[in-house]
């Protein structure tokens, strides 16, 4: 450089800023921000940094092999990711799932939802600088992860739901743990409100930031809590009940404002609704099998005695290793933590799916985020990002 490096390039009033993909506030995502002073004129969102070709891999693996794979994109919400895929496969296989397994699926899915929302809260909190919210989110999540560990045998990579049922049964010890965890979470949410939700600092950062009207939310294709934060009553658990949701009593929190604070409130109230669902599941869960009769009968009787009667665990019959569902196609949708998750599976009669399509809720946040960022302040980049609860690996798949 001439003159000893003294000719420095000073950023003009309008300039570009390349945020990410390795930046403390971007996650695994690159955002080109065109700035005019402090105002974002345009933002170009460039996903794909953690793309792992789940859909293509899906065409080369057996159905059962895909269970751990489809969990990986949204590892913190793995039960819901798993459940959606299994629902689609079950439609092709045409199996009936026993009542108790349905309840267990809802049970695991709601724990996963709570854990996912707490994670999202934590990320939102650290994005706007609130480190206590970050640590509390992850600390509270630990309680639910412990329950999942006791139920499924793994902390987050649960692989709990298999075609026809679930792998393990609820034990009295887990019920006791869950009751305590529900009481703990209810108490903790009171403190969350004091330090986070009602904190004027947090309110200032979230209220009237990233406002999305009802019409815009529908037009831009927002999903899940982001959609409900804009006043649209839509939840796959209500509109097309799966699992045991048709028998459970819960509300869908909907807020009118459509800003970051409304989205945050929706998430907090969904945690409360999930706690209610867990209580109902514990109370109402029927006795019975947790695997469809069709597969249950294939388990060797000696193993059945040892595992199912001894430890309340299902072992897999050899059928699962490479089953060939009939020709057909199926679509399933579940309400994952971040919104509606859609799987489309096409079977050509072989042991591998012909096509696996996966539409994740985070992917639908990309366009929403791009639109919301226009005209926002630069500091709001992170609060909009956090309030949408965008999770890059889930969007990239």
């Amino acid at each position: 450089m001439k003159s000893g490096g003294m000719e420095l390039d000073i950023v003009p009033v309008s300039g570009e800023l390349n945020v990410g993909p390795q930046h403390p506030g971007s996650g695994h995502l690159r955002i080109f921000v065109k700035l005019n002073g402090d105002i974002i004129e345009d933002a170009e969102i460039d996903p794909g940094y953690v793309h792992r070709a789940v859909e293509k891999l899906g065409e080369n693996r057996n159905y059962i092999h895909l269970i751990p794979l489809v969990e990986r994109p949204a590892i913190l919400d793995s039960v819901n990711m798993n459940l959606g895929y299994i629902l689609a496969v079950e439609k092709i296989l045409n199996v009936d799932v026993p009542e108790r397994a349905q309840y267990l699926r809802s049970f695991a899915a709601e724990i996963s939802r709570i854990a996912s929302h707490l994670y999202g809260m934590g990320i939102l909190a650290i994005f706007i600088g609130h480190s206590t919210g970050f640590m509390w989110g992850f600390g509270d999540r630990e309680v639910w992860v412990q329950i999942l560990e006791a139920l499924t045998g793994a902390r987050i990579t649960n692989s709990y739901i298999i075609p026809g049922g679930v792998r393990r049964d609820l034990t009295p010890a887990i019920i006791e743990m869950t009751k305590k965890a529900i009481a703990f979470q209810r108490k903790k949410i009171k403190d969350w409100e004091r330090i986070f939700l009602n904190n004027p600092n947090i309110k200032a950062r979230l209220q009237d930031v990233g406002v999305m009207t009802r019409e815009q939310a529908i037009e831009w294709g927002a999903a899940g809590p982001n959609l409900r934060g804009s006043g649209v009553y839509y939840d796959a658990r209500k509109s097309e009940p799966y699992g045991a949701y048709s028998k459970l009593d819960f509300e869908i929190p909907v807020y009118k404002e459509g800003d970051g604070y409304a989205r945050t409130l929706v998430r907090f109230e969904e945690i409360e609704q999930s706690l209610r669902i867990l209580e109902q599941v514990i109370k109402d869960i029927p006795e019975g099998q947790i695997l469809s009769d069709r597969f249950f009968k294939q388990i060797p009787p000696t193993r059945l005695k040892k595992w199912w009667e001894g430890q309340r665990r299902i072992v897999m019959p050899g059928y699962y290793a490479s089953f060939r569902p009939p020709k057909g196609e199926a679509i399933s949708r579940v309400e994952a933590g971040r919104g509606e998750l859609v799987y489309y599976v096409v079977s050509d009669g072989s042991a591998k799916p012909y096509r696996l399509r996966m539409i994740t809720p985070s992917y639908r946040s990309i366009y929403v985020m791009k639109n919301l960022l226009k005209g926002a302040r630069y500091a709001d980049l992170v609060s909009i990002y956090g309030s949408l609860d965008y999770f890059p690996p889930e969007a990239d798949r």
Partner: protein
Amino acid sequence: MDSVKIKEYKKGESPFNVVSGHLQAVGAGIKYFVKPQRITLKYPDESMSLPTGYRGMIRLYKDVCIGCTLCAMVCPADAMKMVTDQGKKFPTINYGRCVFCAFCVDICPVDALKETGVHDAAFSNRRELIFNPEKFDQDFDQPPLRPVVRKVKAVIDEDKGIKYVPDTE
């Protein structure tokens, strides 16, 4: 479909509420500062004993195994492969690929595979990650470098979230 209730939160608060909000937030901070709710596990000093059925590392019972290859077929990560040893087929496992889904344990028709509670292991190179049937046949045990390890159990507590109590077993 039940009745749709669209809520609104209260905007534009009075300065009094803002001040009380600040005081409440600082008060909540001080409350936790005085009475902390720690859930950190001081890992090398304390080690968590895992619940039964935890999907840790897997071991093989070679004398039970019938060499049916179901475990290798069901393995989602191709971690388990079959090798022929003295005319008999046995599985090997590559822990570099294993995702600990325990499908192999569940599908084994004779229960020749078992999940152990071990999950904290360290290897110095990739070759060691591949367990041949002889190594796979033994309980994996890596004694800790610092022997003073207190075994604790995580218990969910209504006030503290997670509490660690000494594991008496």
